[in-house]
């Protein structure tokens, strides 16, 4: 715990301020606020329907909260514009896998490099030196990610044909390829066995340590959450119930009542 980090936790990079989101009469998020610090791993936990995924969707611009603001690097995030928000440096994975099913693993991860290739279609069509070089660099980067995630043997397989665990890995790879400053991971370990989970944790920690990427993850496995996150925010019925380091959250009576329950040991 006490060991020196390559990228020490800094000041808030993303601030969620009094967000409220409702669908018709159903309130998904009510006046939730928390902030995410630079280079930290932040877990969002809470019971089903607490508004965790909705929160990520708000940050990433898929939903527009009716009230409140989200501030990223001292700038207000634009409303409902995932593509602009991606350009600002926020990338994500999805809860129910949103991969490009008919494309190969390599191509999926290459799409993550979208913001690192600005050659237009004419430059691509005529294979100008600029387009060639960018493509080469992006492919190199993707090969590195594929190597890192240990999925080199399946890189040409269409992702639709891969088992669930591997697809989750590919999705992480695609998010990593963006080299975004903030990664939103929506249940990156759902449906995985212990071994796979351990592997995934290793990847997340390594990326955070080596590149300093700020991670926001939703996870239900409390063991994992308490292990890898620097801070935890607890949502319940769309409200922020608690926000703090794992040790504090574990001891928080409200959180125990609402979500954690009492440990039997």
């Amino acid at each position, binding site marked *: 715990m006490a060991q020196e980090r390559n990228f020490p936790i800094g000041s808030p990079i993303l601030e969620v301020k009094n967000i409220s989101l409702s669908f018709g009469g159903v309130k998904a998020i009510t006046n939730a606020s928390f902030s995410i610090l630079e280079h930290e791993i932040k877990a969002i936990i809470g019971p089903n329907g607490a508004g965790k995924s909705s929160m990520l969707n708000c940050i990433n611009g898929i939903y527009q909260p009716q009230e409140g603001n989200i501030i990223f690097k001292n700038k207000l995030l634009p409303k409902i514009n995932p593509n602009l928000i991606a350009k600002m440096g926020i990338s994500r994975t999805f809860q129910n896998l949103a991969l490009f099913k008919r494309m190969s693993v390599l191509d999926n991860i290459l799409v993550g490099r979208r913001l690192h290739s600005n050659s237009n279609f004419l430059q691509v069509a005529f294979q100008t030196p600029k*387009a060639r070089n960018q493509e080469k660099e992006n492919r190199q980067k993707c090969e590195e990610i594929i190597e890192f995630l240990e999925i080199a043997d399946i890189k040409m397989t269409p992702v639709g044909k891969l088992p669930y665990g591997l697809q989750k890995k590919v999705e992480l790879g695609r998010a990593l390829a963006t080299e975004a400053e903030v990664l939103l991971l929506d249940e990156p370990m759902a449906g995985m066995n212990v071994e796979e989970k351990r592997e995934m944790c290793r990847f997340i920690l390594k990326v955070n340590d080596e590149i300093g990427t700020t991670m926001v993850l939703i996870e239900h496995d409390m063991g994992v959450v308490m292990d890898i996150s620097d801070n935890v925010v607890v949502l319940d019925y769309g409200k922020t119930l608690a926000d703090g380091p794992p040790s504090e959250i574990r001891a928080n009576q409200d959180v125990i009542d609402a979500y954690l329950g009492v440990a039997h040991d």
Partner: protein
Amino acid sequence: MKNNKIFMEYNKSDIINFLLLMLIAFVLIPVTVKSGYWYSSILIPWLCLALASIGQQIVMGYAGQLALGAAGFMAAGAFACYNLILRVPDIPFFVALVLSGLIAAAFGILFGLPSLRVRGIYLMVATLASQFFIVWMIDKFGWFKNYDSSGIITAQDIVIMGKSFTSPMEMYLVIVFVVTILTLLAVNMARGSTGRNWMAVRDMDIAAESMGISLLRTKLQAFAISAFYCGVAGALFAFTYLKSLEPVAFDIKLSFKILFMVILGGLGTINGAFIGAAFILLFPVLLNSVGNNVFHGAIDATIISSIEQVVFGVLIIVFMIYEPLGMAKLWENLKFKVKNK
């Protein structure tokens, strides 16, 4: 299993295949094929329609936008080319051809706009507008047809650098040249970042957006490029195959034909466009010659054309269910099997 399929850098077998094809197209065919029938009834329409199929392939197979109206864009290209040559003195043919493509592309952007709001079958219905509007416009306003009352205008001769290309073989060479270049460009786009953006939008648009792909730009780009290909194909089709210009030639039946070529050939493949076009075009010819030569005309011509419809219909259903990637995929599988024997 070897993974030598690195897309970007063309590998050795790609280049050898390409050179072989070029040798066949530019040397072997012109040297050996002498009959005008082969050029003007098979090779020329095949290449023209294959080019239009590439256009349809881009918007439908790659970008996943169900569009139906390729023939409308072909009409736009054909009449644009006619008017450009007619009204702009000394315009080089290839310049006119590219401009026709660009005019068609402008229509493509216009009629691609509904794709920002609707998708699937509804988009298909919305894009039908291009089919009907363009053909109606050309019919309605005499200017496009240079106020020709007969309704059928003879296309001008193709003149390149002072030499006119009028014999079937000469026209074939012009087309092969254009198709080669445009196919190469399409392959480059499809294999490069442009094609990946299209496919990402096709497979999962929300994720594509979250990766920084603008749906608006990507969809309209696909529509524009698709219409460009259709426009050029339409101009070539009118100038070399029909040798005349009439709006009726670009009716909805042609749009459907191109749609079938793409589905049977294989969605999301460039060579599928060529395979599909060959099949749709050659199958009726084959059926006819079987009817004539095997049954010596004992089968009525109308029955033969009905059989043709039935076979196409059945094949489309079969391919949709068992091999959505079409004949191009079957061809890949076959190659794979032969290689691994």
